[in-house]
């Protein structure tokens, strides 16, 4: 099938994926001690539902979700809970609450983990099971899969798109998954169709992954499934850009795909759903690419959450050539970690041990020379040079007009800037501050409405009291007079 249209912006980047794909998916050893983070990447930490000293099995629920956008967490190993403590994590906050479980090596699975007869279950129950299993988006954002599928059902979406693009350099966990476990991806897709009510599914894969495409096509027996190759460009895998490439539709500003009848999920999430229905196993593992010139044997590991990243590096031949940065994610949007003692979470797709050869020296920042290269590569159609000017001026209405909220933080503008301006980092902070301000404004408007209603109520009550008083006085007068 011919590659669909690719947007004219974006970048062509060297992929750096071949080495890690060489030997397929390798099982990572279970950690001796699992540090299970309460925030698996969604930003909304779960609350521990277990006490220190209790024994757990693989798949036992150990934390409850407390927010609509959070997920419960299950234990990745069998053993004893040794502590519940703050620990360094890979999240933006840098630290978070973790349940530490000592692995007793028994590998006993919790008996509550049973396969599901999902085809005979009503969709809402499938959704409840997916949520209870803590399945979150494995494309990096860790948003609860059930919440997304449920939103799709509420909006009566018709088209499910599975994101197998994986456009960022170094990351190849999805490609390895599609090559070796295509059947899982397709089974997960079928379950998702049932749960969300969508009528058909497209799996979008970049056209530089022919083996993955072939494997998916070979395993696709359901006529509702379609495998589509899309043009290879960074960031083809960004949700809005991907949906545009596959369907030609643009998701309107500030809205989500379900409003136009679309639903997007990562192929890894689909495979996790498949695992749930076939074995009952909740979200306790993921495929993570451990790569970079700084590890001896780059590979895609099938690893449990809670495994310290240092142990994953050891499983890949240990460090070599003096890696300078440890990046959680790819080299375009990944976060540089201070230490490798952080545990694996569902949001970490890839770990790059980057040596100086893998990185670029940024050099001193110069003023913007308005060359316009950034605008040429921006996949969201923004004008980063104008945004930057507005940012320096602190001009919030101008930032809004130039679409700061539409920035997908892909890093393309940074990549081409000859003045070496750290645009992405500045836009990230500005977006965070702007969304906080936006929420404050919404809340203030809400409070103002309540206050005005309160004042009206007080005024009406006072008026009613005054009238009652007048009536009483009149009656008293007429009684006295009469």
């Amino acid at each position: 099938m011919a590659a669909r249209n690719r947007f004219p912006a974006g970048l062509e980047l060297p992929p750096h994926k071949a080495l890690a794909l060489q030997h397929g998916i390798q099982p990572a050893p279970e950690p001796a001690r699992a540090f299970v983070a309460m925030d698996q990447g969604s930003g909304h930490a779960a609350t521990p539902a277990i006490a220190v000293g209790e024994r757990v099995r693989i798949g036992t629920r150990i934390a409850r979700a407390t927010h609509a956008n959070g997920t419960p967490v299950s234990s990745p190993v069998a053993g004893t809970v040794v502590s519940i403590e703050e620990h360094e994590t890979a999240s933006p906050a840098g630290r978070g609450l973790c349940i530490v479980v000592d692995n007793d090596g028994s590998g006993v699975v919790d008996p509550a983990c049973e396969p599901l007869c999902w085809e005979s279950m009503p969709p809402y129950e499938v959704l409840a099971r997916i949520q209870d299993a803590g399945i979150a988006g494995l494309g990096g954002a860790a948003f609860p899969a059930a919440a997304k599928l449920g939103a799709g059902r509420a909006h009566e979406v018709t088209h499910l798109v599975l994101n197998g693009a994986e456009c960022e350099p170094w990351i190849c966990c999805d490609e390895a998954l599609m090559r070796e476990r295509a059947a899982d991806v397709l089974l997960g897709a079928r379950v998702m169709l049932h749960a969300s009510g969508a009528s058909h599914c497209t799996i979008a894969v970049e056209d530089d992954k022919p083996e993955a495409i072939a494997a998916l096509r070979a395993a696709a027996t359901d006529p509702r499934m379609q495998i589509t190759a899309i043009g290879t460009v960074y960031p083809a895998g960004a949700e809005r850009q991907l949906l545009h490439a596959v369907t030609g539709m643009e998701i309107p500003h500030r809205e989500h795909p379900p409003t136009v009848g679309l639903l997007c999920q990562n192929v890894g999430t689909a495979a996790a759903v498949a695992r749930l229905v076939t074995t009952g196993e909740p979200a306790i593992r993921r495929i993570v690419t451990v790569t970079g010139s700084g590890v001896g044997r780059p590979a895609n590991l099938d690893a449990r959450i809670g495994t310290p990243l240092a142990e994953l590096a050891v499983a890949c031949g240990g460090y070599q050539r003096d890696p300078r940065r440890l990046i959680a994610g790819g080299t375009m949007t990944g976060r540089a970690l201070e230490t490798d003692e952080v545990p694996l979470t569902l949001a970490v797709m890839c770990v790059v041990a980057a040596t100086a050869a893998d990185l670029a020296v940024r050099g001193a920042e110069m003023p913007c020379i308005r060359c316009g290269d950034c605008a040429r590569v921006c996949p969201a159609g923004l004008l980063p040079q104008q945004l930057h000017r507005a940012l320096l001026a602190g001009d919030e209405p101008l930032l809004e007009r130039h679409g700061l909220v539409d920035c997908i933080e892909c890093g393309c503008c940074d990549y081409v800037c000859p003045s070496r301006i750290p645009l992405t980092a500045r836009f990230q902070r500005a977006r965070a501050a702007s969304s906080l301000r936006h929420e404050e404004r919404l809340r203030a408007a809400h409070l103002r409405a309540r206050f005005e209603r309160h004042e009206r109520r007080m005024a009406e009550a006072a008026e009613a009291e005054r009238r009652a008083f007048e009536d009483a006085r009149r009656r008293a007068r007429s009684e006295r007079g009469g």
Partner: protein
Amino acid sequence: MRFETSAAPHVIAGFSVPRVMFQVLLGLLPVVAVQLTLLGPGVLLQLLVAGPVALLCEALALRARGRDAGPFLRDGSVLVTAALLAVSVPPLLPWWLTALGAAVAVLLGKHVYGGLGYNPFNPAMVGYAVLLVSFPLEMTQWPTPLGQSQSDWTDLAHLAWQSFLSGPAAGGPDWDAYTGATALDALRTGLGQRYTMEEIFAGPAFASISGSGAQWINVAALLGGLYLLARRIISWHIPVAVLAGMAIPSALMHLVDPGAHAPATFHLLSGATMLGAFFIATDPVSAATSDHGRLVYGAGIGLITWLIRVWGGYPDGMAFAVLLMNLAAPLLDRYTVSRIHGHPRR
């Protein structure tokens, strides 16, 4: 094990401001070479003055503003300004005027607005315009190109050196023999004296298409500009728009009244057209930013240059056209904002 931290993205492309500036200087080499061959070594003298003066002014200005001068001096942007000025002014310009022009370009054209990246006007053109308006005599004395007069290259060298040191009067009786009207000058005076286009074009200042000197300088600038395009230093929008903005009205008017209007090919290859289209108008800081804006910007420059040449008071209007469109650039940016993905199509 601990690691260093840094913000994403962790890789960047190789473009840098010094590299861009160096390529622009390379692109100017053909122009310098042709000027050397046809008009004598004056252009080298101009470069030798403009460069150091510009660097000195930049360093002084940055010191005065309390900034670290190192990165800005090393990035080559001020050298490009000096070089553009040096090839735009007549090669016979006395050194103090060149120095003045370079100083004005860097100080008044760049640093009063905040330095690199903040100047609304093209600095080289600010320097050129100040010189042109203040010293009209010296700024319009061009040597007759080799082959057109009886002079040979050593005569031109001698003339350039004398004029460089002591100004036009010091050229002595040779001055009138070796300097003359440019093709654009001749066109203007000829039209004023009611000669027809054919008669004017038969004059000594003209070669096959345009002026005997200007023609080859423009071809050299075109070659340098194509090199910059190939290396992706500039994009095609501004040069194509400038040339179209000049070619279309002039071709139309030539069709309507061939006796009173020079053909488009003449305009495209005379004066500072090619230099302006590929090197001067493409200065990113003072031009419009969006692609559509750049098309309008370039077209405006081409059109205004042609208008000044035909009806204005100066033989070549490129500098003023560029400055006028620099004024319009912010407005163009405001009205040519691209549509953001997900926003409604207007």
